[in-house]
């Protein structure tokens, strides 16, 4: 026998090769291409002071729900109820703020409206998760049921209590309540102050010419950073992260080694419900409106972003960083029509379709490489 062993067959790779093979590499390249293309096509308007604020707002929205969806997908399940959950949470908060707390408990404050809504959405998440793990049914079908159920419930509640499927003209709570300001206010004002000091970010026309144009990013940017940061930390650095990967890869193997597979899944269904509630809170407290159609189709965009970010449809593999890149890409393209007047807005969906398909192929290649072609 020679000194050769199985271990010698694993080629040591350079750091560069390892980077290229990471799940988020494809998403990173697509993101760079999109940033460059939109910057040039919009004649830099997409990244002027106002453009950056508006782009970050939609990117953060996508990022918040896609992070929850990606964690759940890594654990091997889908949640199609995210969009309806957003609609339900927004309705619930706006309704309480307009008509008062249920059971005649008096006036609602932004804090109480949010907490009661969160309690309800987390309960829905728990119910969905429990049904999925107890019944062994596909989460696709169980959450599809909740997609209809929650949307219908939202519309019924609106019509019964409010006589209309919209609420608008709520008081501007973010002016009076610190809690509403957390969701609807502005953050990172220093960034725009600095930009103004450096000579940019100024009103160019009219009576206010020369004054500072933009005062800060929407608060949802901070929420996205917090949620994505926490998700990254939990997934890649903690025991629960290892359980999430193990659950999605081969749940019988995970169970045999003592991983609480069911609790992991239920917890992640509650996480997607939490993300949907944060999404809705940012929307309600920013615009002081709610609408029964809010969040429509958002679940599919969240899943698409997770996949473009390198998350495997079959579970067990994925990256929060990739989802960040995916959210940036999707947000920029969704908003592109505002900065590039000559393109049709529906190109967004054409783009999503093409990129999604390409990403699925790329992910499948990664999976085959790792599992040795099985």
């Amino acid at each position, binding site marked *: 026998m020679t000194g050769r062993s199985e271990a010698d067959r*694993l080629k040591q790779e350079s750091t560069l090769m390892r980077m290229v093979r990471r799940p988020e590499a494809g998403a990173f390249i697509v993101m760079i291409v999109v940033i460059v293309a939109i910057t040039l096509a919009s004649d830099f308007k997409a990244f002027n002071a106002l453009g950056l604020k508006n782009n970050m707002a939609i990117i953060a929205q996508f990022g918040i729900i896609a992070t929850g969806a990606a964690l759940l997908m890594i654990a091997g399940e889908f949640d199609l109820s995210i969009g309806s959950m957003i609609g339900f949470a927004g309705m619930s908060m706006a309704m309480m703020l307009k008509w008062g707390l249920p059971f005649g408990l008096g006036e609602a404050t932004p804090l109480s409206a949010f907490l009661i809504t969160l309690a309800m959405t987390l309960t829905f998440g728990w119910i969905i998760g429990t049904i999925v793990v107890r019944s062994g049914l596909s989460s696709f079908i169980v959450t599809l049921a909740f997609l209809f159920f929650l949307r219908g419930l939202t519309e019924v509640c609106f019509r019964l209590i409010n006589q209309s499927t919209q609420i608008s003209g709520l008081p501007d709570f973010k002016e009076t309540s610190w809690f509403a300001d957390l969701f609807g206010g502005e953050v990172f004002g220093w960034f725009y102050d600095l930009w103004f000091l450096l000579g940019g970010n100024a009103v160019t026309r009219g009576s206010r010419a020369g004054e500072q144009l933009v005062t800060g990013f929407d608060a949802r940017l901070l929420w996205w950073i917090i949620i994505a940061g926490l998700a990254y930390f939990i997934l890649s650095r903690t025991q629960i992260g290892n359980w999430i*990967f193990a659950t999605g*890869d081969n749940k*019988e193997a*995970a169970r*045999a080694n003592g991983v609480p597979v069911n609790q992991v899944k239920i917890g992640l269904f509650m996480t997607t419900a939490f993300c949907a509630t944060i999404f809705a809170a940012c929307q309600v407290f920013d615009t002081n409106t709610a609408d029964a159609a809010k969040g429509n189709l958002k679940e599919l965009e969240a899943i698409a972003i997770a996949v473009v970010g390198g998350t495997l449809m079959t579970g067990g593999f994925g990256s929060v960083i990739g989802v960040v890149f995916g959210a940036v890409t999707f947000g920029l393209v969704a908003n592109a029509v505002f900065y590039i007047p000559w393109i049709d807005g529906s190109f967004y969906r054409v783009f999503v379709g093409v990129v999604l398909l390409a990403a699925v192929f790329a992910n499948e290649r990664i*999976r085959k490489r790792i599992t*040795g072609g099985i």
Partner: protein
Amino acid sequence: MAQPYLRVEKLVKRFGPFTALSGVDLDVWPGEVHALLGDNGAGKSTLIKTLSGVHQPTEGQIYIEGKPVTFRTPRDAAAAGIGTVYQDLALNPLMSVTRNFFMGRELKGMFGMLKMDEMDKVAHDEMLKIGIDISDPGQAVGTMSGGQRQTLAIARAIHFGAKVLILDEPTSALGQKQQMEVLRTIKTVRERGDIAIIFITHNEIHSKLIADRFTFLSLGEVIGAGTKEELAGDDIRRLMAGGAEIEDLAQMLA
């Protein structure tokens, strides 16, 4: 070494009207490989599942170091030092060696943070101890050979306190060379002297190469048992065939 680590007396397991095991005796000594042989349906799987706490015995008693024990769950059995490596190995192909090694029993510090460096080192060292030097503990298990995966599963069971290692057909579904790799791993574990190994196989040659003691099962009963010295080669072959003579089998085919 006055007593076997694991002793099974008159173990009976019935599933409704079906008797899977009818009065099986088994002694397993530390530092020995105990081959458990028998045809499909002989009751091997039922026996190891009973020993691992998956099934509860209908009658009979299991002893660990002379003390009677009852396993209600696989967790009970694992706590008593029974480590079972099933055929599917309970590994996750997309995850790294280290993450598989510590799956469900991660070393964690503050905020549930994984002690990745320490875990990498333990996984590497434990596998090296039984004969495989993996160059990269961050390697995905899916890229490893069947023999390496088997070694990983065995090293994991030992690290987490197995005193009796139950290996369910570890050499089946492997190529010739990898089979030898696994047998060498089993030999290394035996040489430690403190671990008893129950080696389930269909392969007469493998069992003869490595086992110190044999138990043959057929239709839920022990039809032969003894040490390597007590059993002559022909006995082993005859018992493997469920007590039939090879000549009889040849006749059946004729």
